[in-house]
């Protein structure tokens, strides 16, 4: 096979990694920032270093705000519409179908977890549950109690935590 094919393979891998980094920096330019309320803890994962586990208020969705399919499959993609209320973003409504957010609103994609019928809550995961920090500084976050997380959301759906206080 021609040698150029080899350089294409390597080039694609190079571009992929550069693209991963670039698309992350692009969120800063094109994304919208929102603030979310949370509580942290500190476990370990073999494939990563240290990170703080974050749980968000908006991950527990009241049944009266849930639309669409009432019994989604765990792990499926759901859409959550958020609106700014008193400094932090709160859930307006959620569904397994897409929303058209009006001004002042933001739509996040999340993974559906389970339905808690006792408290009539739909539990979802935004994939923002991990905030990576430098080795062995997790304690500091764990003791700091409830925090405000600033998240930037890009128009293409990618989101990142920009600040943790």
């Amino acid at each position, binding site marked *: *096979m021609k*040698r150029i*094919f*080899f350089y294409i*393979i*390597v080039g*694609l*891998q*190079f571009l*992929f*990694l*550069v693209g*991963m*980094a670039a698309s*992350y920096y692009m969120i800063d330019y094109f994304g919208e920032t929102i603030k979310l309320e949370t509580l942290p803890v500190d476990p370990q994962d073999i*494939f*990563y*270093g240290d990170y703080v586990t974050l749980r968000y208020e908006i991950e527990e969705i009241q049944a009266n705000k849930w639309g669409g399919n009432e019994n989604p499959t765990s*792990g499926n*993609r759901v859409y959550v519409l958020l609106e700014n209320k008193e400094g932090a973003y709160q859930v307006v409504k959620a569904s397994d179908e897409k929303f058209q957010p009006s001004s002042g609103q933001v739509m996040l994609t999340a*993974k559906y977890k389970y339905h808690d019928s006792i408290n009539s809550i739909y539990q979802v995961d*935004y*994939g*923002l549950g*991990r*905030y*990576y920090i*430098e*080795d062995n500084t997790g304690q500091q976050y764990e003791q700091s109690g409830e925090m405000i997380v600033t998240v930037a959301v890009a128009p293409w759906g990618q989101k*990142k*935590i920009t600040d943790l206080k």
Partner: protein
Amino acid sequence: MNRDSIKKEAQKWQEEGIINQQQMSQIVGRYPKRDRGFLLLTFAALFIGLGFLTFIASNWSFIPQIGKMAIILIFMVGFYISGEQVYRNKSKPVGLSLLVIGLFVFGAGIFLTGQMYNYMYFQATPFLIWALAGVLLFVFYQHATLYVVSIVITTVGQVYNAFVYSDFYFMLFLVLLLAFGHYTYHRARRLYGYLFACSFMIQTIVLIFAFGSEYYWVIVSSLVLYGLGSASNRQGISRPFRHVSLLAMFILCIFHIFSLGNSYFLNSIGFESAFLIVWIILFILASIIKIMKKEIINTIELVLFLPVVYLSFGDLLAMLMLFAFSLGILLIGYKEENYQKITLGTFAFLISTLLAYIHLAWAFLNKSLFFFLGGIILFILSFLLERKRRELKKDVKGGVNE
């Protein structure tokens, strides 16, 4: 037959004047030299790759983000390009090792970049990208080392997906079927066959659990593998596929011997009519293939695929299946004077006896008596089987000298 033994034989023939010098070298030439050095090299490259991964990871937090990206990219491109140069101009094994390290740096790069930039995955996407890069490299170089490394990445990715996301990743399964399937079929190399079959079994087990189906669906996936193996005329596919599926079923039978007597376990098993329908169709197909190939005698292998879960005394039936299979292989081995089959059958038979003994006698016998008697039974069995085997070996040798 391997090259060395055929060379010895051919030299004898030449000395006896049956063939001439040219014919001898022609015969020997038909058996290519086997290159097994790459296996060690694969492991060497794997270790160095892991070392690189852990070293960078442990010093990671002291480097700024742009620096981290630069390290990953420079190392990756450096290993790839030097690997390519060395492979072309100097040494293939060394070049390949460098290329494999490059592939590892790329894999580590995806994870580390993901960590640096807070990437969230809903599936084992990094493994998919990584595996695809490996497949492309394999397509380019067509070297076994890259096949081994890539299929390991694919399979580990599927298992990782199962543990972390409790889900089945179809894309990785497609990579196995389309990319590795293509080369396994066309190259028909035994190593590829075994690796493909193992990955197929592991991935379908993940599939079964991810969909919450009953575990015994593994009989179906194993039967598919067995059927494909039986249908293929290529040694490099037929044997590995059948061996791996039979091994999986042998292990399942062992599991059944110990679990199907347990009423708690029996109550937890559900009946799935879909399974029975699929199983019957596949079983008939496999039998037809066996008959069409005129391997009726080998149909005894299919006994391992019987779904005893649904029957009462499943544990005893599983035990009988193991005995039927082992004795079947043993007898076929004697009949065909196939040395390998006899060894395999002997081994399977000893294991079956041991299991039957453990299962039946453990509860009733005094513990020290249990071990004594077990030891004696195994000793007698191995003595008898070994004697029979030696007799046959003598016969075979005698036949050659006649």
